[in-house]
């Protein structure tokens, strides 16, 4: 259920991603600078699309895969925008913006499929809470993966004694990237924990049991355990820097697998079409 605001959002995402990537690759800092407000504009349009869509449908717009993708992309874009503008991490744009663009583009293409209405059994005040927490947790992990990717790219250049950036461009130090990765993982973990708890409480209220080992639930648990292990390894054994970045990316692929497989392959209560 697209509103007219999604195409302009897509255009802005595309221009922004182009600016970030080309700005880095061709060493034109001005393109990178212009990409930031473009990302902000894209988020604005996207917000309008989601809000209007939600008002029309009467519920939070995550009833099918396409909408979930769009919602996730939106949250990812917001987190990225905040990081880029407040913490001067323009480098992140080149790593995250293309992914967001792909997600929104796919969402637009896929939007015909799937149901558009939440089944009655799932109508509840829990729905927006649980879903937003879960997706926010996912979005934070996506951005953490982007940060980790940036870390690995720049760290390998430093090790190879190649210049990290072309002259005239700045980028955050490795230590800063590492620290932000840690913070994102921490917050993502908190959100995912709250999402699982809220899901369990909701399930209890609706169906009488906290946990039913649904595919999505199981996958979430595995993801949760992975991130717990990641954070623990950093806190206890001081695993940071390259291995933390590599592990974050590995854990992210698990997350990606869970999101896609649950939505496309294993319909259950969480299934892609809510059927």
């Amino acid at each position, binding site marked *: 259920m697209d509103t007219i605001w999604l195409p302009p959002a897509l255009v802005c995402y595309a221009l922004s991603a182009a600016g970030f990537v080309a700005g880095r690759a061709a060493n034109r800092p001005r393109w990178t600078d212009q990409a930031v407000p473009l990302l902000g504009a894209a988020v604005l349009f996207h917000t309008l699309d989601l809000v209007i869509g939600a008002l029309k449908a009467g519920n939070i717009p995550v009833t099918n895969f396409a909408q979930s993708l769009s919602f996730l992309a939106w949250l990812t874009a917001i987190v990225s925008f905040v990081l880029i503008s407040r913490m001067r991490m323009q480098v992140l744009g080149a790593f995250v913006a293309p992914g967001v663009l792909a997600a929104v583009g796919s969402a637009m293409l896929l939007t015909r499929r799937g149901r558009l209405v939440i089944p009655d059994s799932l109508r509840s005040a829990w729905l927006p809470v649980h879903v937003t927490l879960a997706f926010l947790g996912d979005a934070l992990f996506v951005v953490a993966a982007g940060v980790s990717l940036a870390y690995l790219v720049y760290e390998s250049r*430093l090790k190879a*004694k190649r210049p990290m950036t072309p*002259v*005239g461009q700045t980028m955050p*130090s490795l*230590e800063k990237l590492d620290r932000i990765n840690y913070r994102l993982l921490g917050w993502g973990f908190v959100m995912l924990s709250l999402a699982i708890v809220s899901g369990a409480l909701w399930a209890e209220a609706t169906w009488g049991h906290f946990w039913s080992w649904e595919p999505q639930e199981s996958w979430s648990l595995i993801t949760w355990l992975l991130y717990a292990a990641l954070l623990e390894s950093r806190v206890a054994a*001081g*695993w*940071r*820097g390259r291995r933390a970045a590599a592990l974050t990316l590995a854990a992210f692929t698990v997350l990606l697998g869970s999101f896609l497989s649950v939505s496309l392959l294993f319909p259950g209560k969480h299934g892609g079409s809510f059927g």
Partner: protein
Amino acid sequence: MDEKLLIVGINHRTAPVAVRERLAYGDGEILATLLRLKDRAPTLAESALISTCNRVEIVGVAADSARAIDEATSFLAADREVDAALFAGALYRFEGRDAVHHLFRVGASLDSMVVGEPQILGQLKLSYGYAAEAGTAGLVLHRAFHRAFSVAKRVRKATLIGRGSVSVSSAAVRLAGQIFDTLSDKTVMLMGAGQMAELTARQLHALGAETLLVTSRTFDHAVALARALGGTAVPFESHRPYLKIADIVIGSLSAARPVLESENFEAVLRERRYRPIFLIDLGVPRNFDERLNTMENVYLYDIDDLGAVVTESVGERAREADKAETIVADALASFMRWMDGLDLVPAIKDIRVSIEQLRDTELGRHRAWLAALEPAERQRIEGLTRTLVNKLLHRILAGLRSTGAGSSDPAYTAELARRLLCGELAPEGSVLGGTAANLDFEMDLDSGDDEES
């Protein structure tokens, strides 16, 4: 306009430091020197003195540039009590356009030992300040220096000429900034001594590295160096435990074999909880085992690696220098146009005065008749004549300006215009040639314009 800008001097390219230091002037001496120069080199209408570690130059303005240059050269020899032959070979002379070009290039740091260095602009401003204070800077130097400043600013802003690290120590410091977010909670350990190492340690400390440890095989040396740099001395035998807290280690020991080996370094990393460690190896033979770079969160740069960073930056600056030369060339062209325009200004002034005098004279000759008119009619006549004169002047001056701008010798145009419109004979020796005797025509101001009522 025969007044030209001129520059005479020596720089790091033409003269070794042993010669430059004989001619150099301290900041405090410049003002007095300019006043002496004014006395001893009267041909110089304007003058300024630039003296830095890279150059000693006299910048001047004179009509007879050849004589002025000779006077300036003799002045330098006499004033510094140096035999002129000593630096004659190193001396360069620039006149006119070349001099302006040189001045702008110097200001843009294109003539510096390290292209893109930022100090020259401040030094140039200082020289200009002294010249202004001494009263030896006039119309041309004021404009030339101000233009040089704005060119310098534009070059720095529009090109990357000042970026990158062109010294080993600044390259090391920059790399530290790429690894660490902030230096304020980091510890630097300096092993050994040496100019580059000490400079690096000093810069890191100045940028916020709170703790500086100094170690050396001779403890007394370490203590002395620690005191000089504001750090703490550590006995060499017990330096190893400090690796746990040292985030940046600078190696500058003379040692036949590496001091830090990769075999037992894993334990150090674990103790550090894998916090990143930056090893700067300035020793030859190297102080740190090169295999350390393969270990996790260890960043090892030896002297060659740092040298490569510097070479890369220097190359980058050279590429940016080309852009800078274009900016300089533009500014040069517009400055030379301004200088050409100077020719016309006195001519235009004279023309205006002369023609207005014409009007005054004529009105004066009919004074009695005008006085007899009604006030309104009198005013009308005065207004009419004024308008006529103004329109005529406007046409003439506009034509002059556009002609002067295009002609190859604006001075000729100015002279010709003055001759045609002022009724003056050109002075002897002017560009129009000939002596007063040959200039035979008379301008008959009295013929056929009276209308007696």
